[in-house]
Every structure is written in structure tokens, then in C-alpha cells.
């Protein structure tokens, strides 16, 4: 038999679940709808009433993106190749995005981990200024320095190469990683290292065998953020890259939208595909993401 209190509690939990489901549905709806659209044949995309679950399931949009199917323009008796369409470059752009994301994240993490260790374990002039500096850099929006950076890349003859993006993303992610790693390193007790030093380990051994493993959660958190930032950036890709071959996904996918004809199915499939890597990362490392917020973003 249920007591009044239990009944009340059950009702409250039910209400809680209902509101959670509603909120979750609203939050996820855009993505669900994108997925749904991407799996529909053209005829169903514009059907009224619209269908949430496709009546006919098709993977043609994904196929087009992944195989880079050449598209032809039918107008009259002949079929003319219409020149490259964005779909043909999709895989290429995907690889580019992976390269710049991985490259910039790696650089930022290595630099910031070393620096954070140095800042929290050694004493020298200026060591208290660096965190301030990182914080400030963390807040500076990229729109402010994208053009000077671009002109610098021009001078270095790096434009239209993935290096320009890697360096560009380092400039956005480094202050943040620095800040996060600094906060994290500070919270690691120095005694373990001292113990290792007394046991006869060298500084480098201590760093490799003691500090790095302890700092791993921080490193993972910083990496996720760096990856999200690099993967999602549009501005730098838009400004730094000139040729189709070297575009990244974000800029490339916008090209789908800017003709005289928008293929919504294809566009949504592209959107889904470019969200997937971050989603997987997110699912796998969600716990660390939260930890990252705790240590860095919410520091104070």
C-alpha cells in the first residue's frame, strides 16, 4: 500500500520526468529534425504534413556525400557536368577538418601542459602575470585579430594551407588550454612530486611519470574544448583558405547553401555527419567535460 507521501513523491517524479522529456525534446528537436530530413527522399522532404519518422528511408544523401557522386545538370538534350559540387569535396573537407583539429589541439595541449607545469612548480619573474594574460586572451574574440593574423599568414606564405588554420586555432585555443591546465596543475599536490624527487627521479622523469598521469583528466578536458572550438570554427576557415581543396567542413558546408538551389536533404546529411565526431567525443568524455568546466571555466 502506498502512503500519501509516497504517492505525492511518485507524482512529483512523474512530473519531473514529463518536464525533462519535454525540455529534452525541445532541445534535441532541431537535431532530430535534421536527421529525419537527411533520411528522406526529396519528395518527402517537402511533404505536408511533414513526417518526423521518414515513411521511406533513404541513404542517398549520405551516399552522395561519402562517395562524392558527380552531379549532372539536366537542361535540354545534353547532360553537362556542372563542375564540382560541394558534395564531391565532402570527404576531402572532412579529412581537412580532422587534420586541423587534431593538429591545433595537439600543439595547444603540449604547449599549455608544459607551461602550466612550469608556472605552478617553478619560481621566476612574471609567473603570476601569465594566468592574467591567458584569461584576457581567453576572452578576446577572434574577430578582432583574424585579419592581422591573416595578413601575417600572407607574409609567411601560409594562406590556403592547413597550417594557417592550425596556427590560427592554436591562437584561439591556447589561452583557454593554458588557463585550464594552470588551474588543474595547481590543484595537484606537490608532495607526490617531491616524494619522487627524493626517490631519485629527475625533473623530466617526474614530469613524465608522475605529473602527466595525474594531470590526464585536465588534459582530456582541455583537449575536448580545444577540439570543439577548432572543429566548429567558421571565421578562420572562411578567411584563411582560398581553394576548394583546402576548405574545412564548416566553410565548405555553407557552400551547399549559397547557390540558386538548396538541397535540404543533402545539407542536413552534411550537418549530421559533421556533428557526429563531436557527438561521439562528447558521449565518450562527457564526464571530463563537466570536470573541465569545474576546473577552468567556472574557476573562482
Amino acid at each position: 500500500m502506498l502512503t500519501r507521501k509516497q504517492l505525492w513523491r511518485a507524482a512529483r517524479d512523474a512530473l519531473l520526468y514529463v518536464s525533462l522529456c519535454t525540455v529534452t525534446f525541445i532541445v534535441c528537436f532541431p537535431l532530430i529534425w535534421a536527421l529525419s530530413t537527411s533520411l528522406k527522399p526529396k519528395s518527402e522532404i517537402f511533404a505536408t504534413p511533414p513526417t518526423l519518422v521518414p515513411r521511406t528511408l533513404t541513404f542517398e544523401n549520405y551516399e552522395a556525400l561519402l562517395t562524392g557522386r558527380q552531379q549532372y545538370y539536366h537542361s535540354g538534350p545534353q547532360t553537362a557536368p556542372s563542375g564540382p559540387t560541394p558534395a564531391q569535396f565532402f570527404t576531402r573537407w572532412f579529412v581537412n577538418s580532422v587534420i586541423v583539429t587534431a593538429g591545433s589541439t595537439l600543439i595547444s595541449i603540449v604547449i599549455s601542459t608544459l607551461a602550466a607545469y612550469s608556472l605552478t612548480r617553478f619560481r621566476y619573474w612574471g609567473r603570476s602575470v601569465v594566468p592574467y594574460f591567458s584569461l584576457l586572451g581567453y576572452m578576446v574574440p577572434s574577430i578582432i585579430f583574424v585579419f592581422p593574423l591573416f595578413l601575417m599568414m600572407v607574409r609567411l606564405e601560409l594562406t590556403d594551407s592547413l597550417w594557417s588554420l592550425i596556427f590560427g586555432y592554436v591562437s584561439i585555443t591556447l589561452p583557454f588550454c593554458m588557463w585550464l591546465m594552470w588551474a588543474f596543475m595547481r590543484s595537484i599536490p606537490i608532495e607526490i612530486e617531491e616524494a619522487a624527487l627524493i626517490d631519485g627521479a629527475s625533473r623530466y622523469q617526474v614530469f613524465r611519470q608522475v605529473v602527466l598521469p595525474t594531470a590526464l583528466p585536465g588534459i582530456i578536458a582541455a583537449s575536448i574544448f580545444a577540439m570543439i572550438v577548432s572543429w566548429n570554427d567558421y571565421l578562420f576557415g572562411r578567411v584563411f583558405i582560398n581553394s576548394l581543396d583546402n576548405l574545412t567542413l564548416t566553410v565548405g558546408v555553407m557552400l551547399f547553401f549559397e547557390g540558386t538551389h538548396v538541397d535540404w536533404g543533402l545539407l542536413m546529411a552534411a550537418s549530421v555527419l559533421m556533428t557526429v565526431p563531436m557527438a561521439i567525443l562528447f558521449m565518450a568524455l562527457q564526464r571530463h567535460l563537466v570536470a573541465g568546466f569545474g576546473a577552468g571555466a567556472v574557476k573562482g
Partner: protein
Amino acid sequence: MRRLHALLSSDRAVGLLFIAPFVVTAIVFMVYPVVEAIRMAFYSYNPLRPDLSAFVGIANFEFLFSDPLFWDSLWQATVWTLLSILFQTILGVGIAMLLHRALFGMAFFRGLLLFPYIVPTVVIALIWRWIFNPEIGVVNYSLLASGIIREPVYWLSTPTMAMASTIMLNVWKYTPFVVICVLARLQTVPLELYDAAKVDGAGFIRRFIDVTLPQLREVLIVVIVFRTIWTFNKFEEIYLLTKGGPGTSTFNLAVYSFEQSMASLRLGVGAATGVVMMIMLLIGSIVYLRITKFGEEVR
């Protein structure tokens, strides 16, 4: 004694060696571009004709301050920031409270609700244009079908609706940030405080006001300051969804700067806008430092 000396000096060497890459990278890729941006604010610079670049003193700033669009952008940025932050905070705290329950399946909800944060802005802008399309979008269809509206809503076609849409997008994308921060803090609130309040006779609402909110105060201030700074300077969310339109009704300073630099080929004016943004940013940062007493801690 000699060994100790050697250790210290080698330690120092390690310290400097480890910080060196950061210093170099920071100077080349962070300090230099910002300094250069400040320098460019005092130059005329047409990217098509860099050879004609010349020092113009404060002419770019004069241009800026006499351009009504600059002031419009500033005002619109303020509106968009304030409203975005307001909704993000309220929703963020609300959702965090919902998620902060040890109920079955909570991890699942938590994962899904934090998802928007990682969705690329490009993707969400495209999806937004698709679902909010006045004629063929599913949102209008649902609203019409359910009788909530009689006529299709033109989400991006009137200044007010466009502003509302960009705010919605921003709220959608960044509320998870607030949720994560608040949730992390909620988990550290001592449960005994709630018990004490219950024993003292406080109901649900009093407990929220007297226990939860004071505990969240600090994290909320930090989140709000951070988000204000970032939201104020957001470029992609607006540019990709409305390009600042219709008209210039959703311009903010970042879009203004981009348009001046790119479309108008006035990099100097764009840079000057950037300098104005940086000054406001500095003010924001000082507020942040004050609130968190960051400096004292370091000393």
C-alpha cells in the same frame, strides 16, 4: 652544497624551458595579431591595395563614432546580449535543478541536454533556417496546425523576429554551458544545508531562495560575466543566421567590424571597431577579476 646549487639551477632551466614554447607562441600568434590590430586601427587599409595603406591618425575612430550604424550595432549587441544572458541563466538554472536529482536515467537526460553546446554553429544556423523557414519549415507548420498562430511567422524577416531568432539560437546553444556550470556547483552544495532548512520549516521555494541561490551566487556571477563578454562579441551565431539582417537590425559590433573589413574593404575601420570591443572587454575582465578576487589569490 654544490649539488644543491646544481639542482636549483637545473630546475630553473627546466622551468624556463617548459614555459618557452608558450611564450614564443603567445607572442607570435596572440600578442602580435592584437598589437597589429591596434596599429591597423590608425591606418587606412584596403586589402586589395595594401600599397596604398597610410597612417590616418584617429580618422577611423571619427568615422566610427559618426556612423549611426556603429551606434545601432552597439545598441543591438547590448539588447541581444542582455536578453540572451537573461534567458540562458533562467533556463540554465531551471534545467540544472531538474537534472540535479538522483533519479533513474538522469545521466541519459544530462547527456542529451548538454548536446547543443558541441553542435557546430554552422550546423545549427543551417538547421535553424530549415526548421524556421516561413513557408516550408516544420516550426511554422506545427504552430499553424496546432492553431497557436493563424499566419506563418516570418522568423527572419522582421527586425524584431530576426533578433528574437538569433537570441533563440544563442540561448539554445549556450544554455548547456550554464547548465554544466550550475550543475557542477549544485553537486557541491552540502546536503545538510537543505536538511537544516527543512527542519527549520522552509518549503521548496524558500529552500531554493535561501539555500540554493546563495550557493549559486558566485558561479552565476562568473558565468554571467563570461557569457556576457562572449555573447557581446559573438560573430558566427549572427552572421551565419541573418548576416546582420534584415536591414542591419541584427548587426552587432563583430558583424559590423567584419562587414567594414570585408564588404567595405575598410580594414582600418574594422580594426578600430575591434579596439572599441577590446576596451569593453577589458572593462568586463576587470569586473570579473574584482568579483572572483582572482588577483588576491595569486598573490
